[in-house]
């Protein structure tokens, strides 16, 4: 690829991608300096949907901040709520009953599949294939119906509470989830035939947007991005939280580092999530779903507490600083999309514009997660 590094400004031009562009999946703006069809510099400009999520945590009580957590990454809201309640439970020393932990795992994994299905549809839409989106949304709809039945909401669940769950799961949900797992397996095979093996997709993704393990480490990329670069980093395995240590599952790793590797990681991950859900359903213990004696007004002892979860896009960590008051002194959110986006500038250099969009799609960015 002929890259025009250091060319005179009159030989390049600036192309504004976004903030309203279907390929940026939200209000992300990327300032592209182009040399013909090749990118010489891509500068992401976030900030269009900044809502001061961290600052809001400082003027709301611990419980009042809970609904915010499902609005950071609206596609995997369960994992985000899990991160926050986990941090506060750690701070206040609340023990969560086992049934609640198992239900948390089941709902988080269902949410991960639904999130990956949205990515699958939207990514292929970026590449110009419309039909797979409809198949993906058909399956996702089943998950949303299941989760709506127990949480009352389709996206912004806020289902977890400090010490347990909002309410217990019912037989409809458990039966429905078993049925869904059985239905979803053949669907993954169908996706392979319909999309993964498709020659056009392979030509668009293989060898495109190679991210090296060093770049992942440099920018702190996590989730499917780092696993697509050959590093088996998954918070569920490296620092197991909740009851993830009880389940057998593999971490899909592909060493190629190209867009296809990241695609394959996510497709494999859906199968692994189904495995976890199946085991959790089989092992689901009886008992309460709420810890006893959780005070109505929480005042965790002073100190710093951190809790990290594996969200659909990578490591999501919450750091809460408490000064023994009913509101947090500071809430710091470490979101995966922000780190994953930051390597875009380096990796996209010298790429052709359509390939860079394929790279951006394979990073699976959620803009409110970047601009929280």
């Amino acid at each position, binding site marked *: 690829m002929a890259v025009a590094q250091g060319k005179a400004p009159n030989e390049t031009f600036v192309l504004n991608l976004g903030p309203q562009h279907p390929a940026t999946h939200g209000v992300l703006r990327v300032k592209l300096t182009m040399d013909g069809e090749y990118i010489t510099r891509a500068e992401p400009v976030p900030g269009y949907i900044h809502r001061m999520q961290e600052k809001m945590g400082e003027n709301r009580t611990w*419980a009042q901040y809970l609904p915010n957590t499902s609005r950071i990454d609206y596609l995997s809201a369960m994992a985000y709520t899990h991160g926050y309640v986990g941090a506060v439970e750690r701070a206040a020393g609340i023990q969560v009953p086992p049934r609640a932990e198992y239900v948390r795992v089941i709902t988080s994994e269902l949410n991960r599949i639904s999130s990956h299905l949205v990515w699958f549809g939207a990514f292929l839409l970026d590449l110009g294939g419309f039909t797979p989106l409809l198949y993906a949304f058909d399956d996702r709809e089943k998950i949303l119906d299941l989760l709506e039945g127990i949480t009352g909401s389709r996206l912004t669940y806020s289902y977890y509470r400090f010490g347990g769950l909002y309410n217990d799961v019912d037989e409809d949900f458990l039966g429905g989830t078993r049925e869904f797992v059985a239905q979803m397996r053949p669907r993954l095979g169908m996706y392979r035939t319909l999309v993964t093996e498709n020659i056009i997709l392979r030509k668009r993704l293989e060898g495109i947007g190679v991210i090296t393990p060093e770049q992942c480490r440099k920018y702190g990329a996590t989730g499917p991005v780092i696993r697509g670069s050959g590093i088996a980093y998954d918070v569920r395995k490296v620092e197991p939280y909740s009851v993830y240590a009880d389940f057998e599952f593999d971490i899909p790793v592909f060493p190629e580092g190209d867009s296809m590797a990241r695609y394959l990681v996510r497709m494999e991950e859906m199968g692994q999530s189904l495995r976890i859900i199946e085991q959790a359903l089989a092992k689901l213990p009886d008992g309460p779903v709420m810890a006893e004696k959780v005070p109505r007004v929480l005042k965790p002892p002073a100190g710093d507490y951190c809790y990290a979860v594996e969200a659909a896009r990578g490591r999501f960590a919450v750091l809460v600083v408490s000064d023994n008051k009913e509101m947090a002194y500071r809430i710091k959110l470490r979101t995966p999309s922000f780190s994953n986006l930051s390597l875009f500038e380096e990796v996209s250099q010298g790429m052709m514009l359509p390939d860079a969009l394929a790279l951006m799609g394979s990073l699976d960015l959620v803009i409110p997660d970047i601009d929280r």
Partner: protein
Amino acid sequence: MKQPLRDIVGGFYSLLSGMRVTIAQFFKPSVTVHYPHESLQMPARFRGHIELVRDPATGKAVCFACKVCEKSCPSDCITVEGAKLEGAKRKSVTQFRLDFTKCSLCGSCVEACKSNAIRFSRQYNLASTNKDEFVMDLFKRLEAEGQ
């Protein structure tokens, strides 16, 4: 010479097998609902906007204006006013203003209410061209329903 030929045949086969999936879909039942001609039943736990619960014994609102919901709301969208009626032991609600433009349907108010005086409605067709329609007085609404 062999490899490109294999690529062409293999690539063509991958397109055909994809097409087979698409064609098979034509003979499967429809998964969508023809809204607005048909609509779905909301699940029992659906979180709609809140509404006041009527006490079946008295026919009045259960709410006695303790204002716990007002305090628990993260977005300050509830304003409750109550007054002690003559002969009554405790207060009763006289105004329950919900600013639905600010509400994020988190359900904190319903959870905070110890006397189960508010619940989620199952309404979801909430479109309007007039913003004022979303600042609702739930007490007036309950009274109007009773008549």
